[in-house]
């Protein structure tokens, strides 16, 4: 399988502070990968670096195209959807407008309408609330909306930053089930950053563990889940 995303020697900086110290990893097409680590390890920074939302050096290649010089919006247009930490919902707009915004770069009007219906199938609660202001939705609902919005792009690669944050366990389970479905059926490559390592490892094929800006562990999700030392040292369980 070919590598869809190739990251080489990625270093990222917040002002004078260096957050990533030379990351190397790749994502295979069609895979579901999770990036794990403690708070402040650099997981969010990695996703932000891929979308050029933080100053970085190194090389990031997506399906042959170099990402590092491009603006965030141009990177998105290449087919990368990013569900940020905190969800980034357009709170002042309706649920349906949020979905329309997800597809704002697409031209095929009938396709967009059809996709909105598909999102309502995936997430029935959104259909119920589709004329409601997005800011009035609960945390779990906003998370579903954020994922749906990302899917409206018809992305090739989807990046999710701590989707389980602040959500009740049952809702997280549902959400992860849907993510798995999307990965298998819609063939969307997914990279999920998570603090909830256990659930993430159940969902993913591949896993990377990051600590203070460096990748310290990589491998199949099952191996890492079964490796007690790794779990105790890096994942806390």
């Amino acid at each position, binding site marked *: 399988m070919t590598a869809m995303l190739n990251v080489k020697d990625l270093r990222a900086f917040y002002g004078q502070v260096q957050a990533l110290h030379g990351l190397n990893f790749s994502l295979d097409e069609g895979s579901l990968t999770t990036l794990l680590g403690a708070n402040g390890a650099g997981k969010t920074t990695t996703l932000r670096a891929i979308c050029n939302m933080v100053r970085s050096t190194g090389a990031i290649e997506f399906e042959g195209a170099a990402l590092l010089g491009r603006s965030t919006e141009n990177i998105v247009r290449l087919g990368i959807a990013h569900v940020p930490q905190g969800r980034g919902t357009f*709170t*002042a707009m309706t649920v349906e407008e949020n979905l329309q915004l997800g597809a704002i770069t697409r031209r095929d009007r009938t396709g967009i309408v059809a996709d909105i219906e598909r999102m309502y199938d995936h997430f029935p609660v959104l259909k119920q609330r589709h004329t409601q*202001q997005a*800011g*009035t939705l609960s945390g779990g609902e906003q998370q579903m909306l954020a994922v749906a919005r990302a899917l409206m792009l018809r992305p090739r690669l989807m990046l999710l930053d701590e989707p389980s944050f602040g959500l009740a366990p049952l809702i997280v389970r549902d959400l992860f089930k849907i993510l798995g479905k999307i990965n298998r059926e819609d063939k969307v490559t997914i990279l999920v950053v998570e603090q909830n390592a256990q659930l993430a490892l159940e969902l993913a094929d591949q896993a990377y563990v990051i600590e203070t800006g460096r990748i310290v562990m990589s491998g199949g999700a099952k191996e890492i889940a079964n490796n007690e030392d790794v779990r105790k040292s890096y994942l806390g369980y």
Partner: protein
Amino acid sequence: MSAAEEIVVEGQAVEAVPKRAMTLGTGTSLVVLAVLLLVPLVVKNFIIFQMTMLLIYGVAVLALNILTGGSGQFSLGQSAFYAIGAYTSAILMETFGVNYALTLPIAGIICFGAGFLFGQPALRLSGVYLALATFALATAMPQLLKLGYFEKWTGGVQGLVVEKPDAPFGLPMSQDMWLYYFTLVITVAIYVASINLLRSRSGRAFMAIRDNEIAASSMGVNVALYKTLAFGVSAGITGVAGALGAIAVQFVAPDSYTITLAISLFLGMVVGGVGWLPGSFVGSAFIIFVPNIAESVSKGLSGAVFGVLLFLVIFLVPHGARQVAIVGQQLAARLRR
């Protein structure tokens, strides 16, 4: 239009100046002081007068810096307090025969009171709304000064003429030179006091409010008190500057204190570097000299030239003179190695 709430995360409208960068280093300060002390001995009276005005406007910009750079409150109304200070001094001197030096603290206290009072209703306003409110104050002031009701004190549209004081104890210096040194002493005193204020507990309270009002309040800072205090202090200092200005220019008139003055002081603050007190004097130099330069380049297009020069400055140093100082400090550090 929906009635839902707009959630605003309190971002920083005014950026912080790190404490150690708040002043020039001791060495630089001494050099500057030496220059300020010695230059008047070798130049003509008119230049001395301009230097006096530079100090006076510098003090006014410094006051604005404390308010905006320190406590994060915008003000386009400083010209009003400057006017109150100027008229207080003029009226005290001309109508009541008070000694010019005494008028300064009186003007300062009156303006402190005025600022403190204005700060009360201003508590509920911030950002663009506060700018509008202070703007209203600035536009009202010249009109209030022209009101027939006050004419017997203010001299109405024509204003009042002020006597320039002689050097005391028969010192052998011109009126301009004496006034310059008098102003210099006051300026240095206010400068040092302001730096100490910003470094004190009150100063920290100001800056906490500037950076994050909600957090400051939840940490026990009495936001209302400190905000009005900041207004009061700023107005008081501006009032002293206004009083000095009245004496230096030798007259006060309503149309000398229009919104144009308030805008100039604002520009002086930006050019000098918001929150950086030494920059107040760079900003003051800018607002005194650059309009003259613009007019000498082209009489008909002086406004356009001024605007272009202003753009050049803000493109090159968006953070004001402070940026230049930082570069200078870095160079100096490198040379020392």
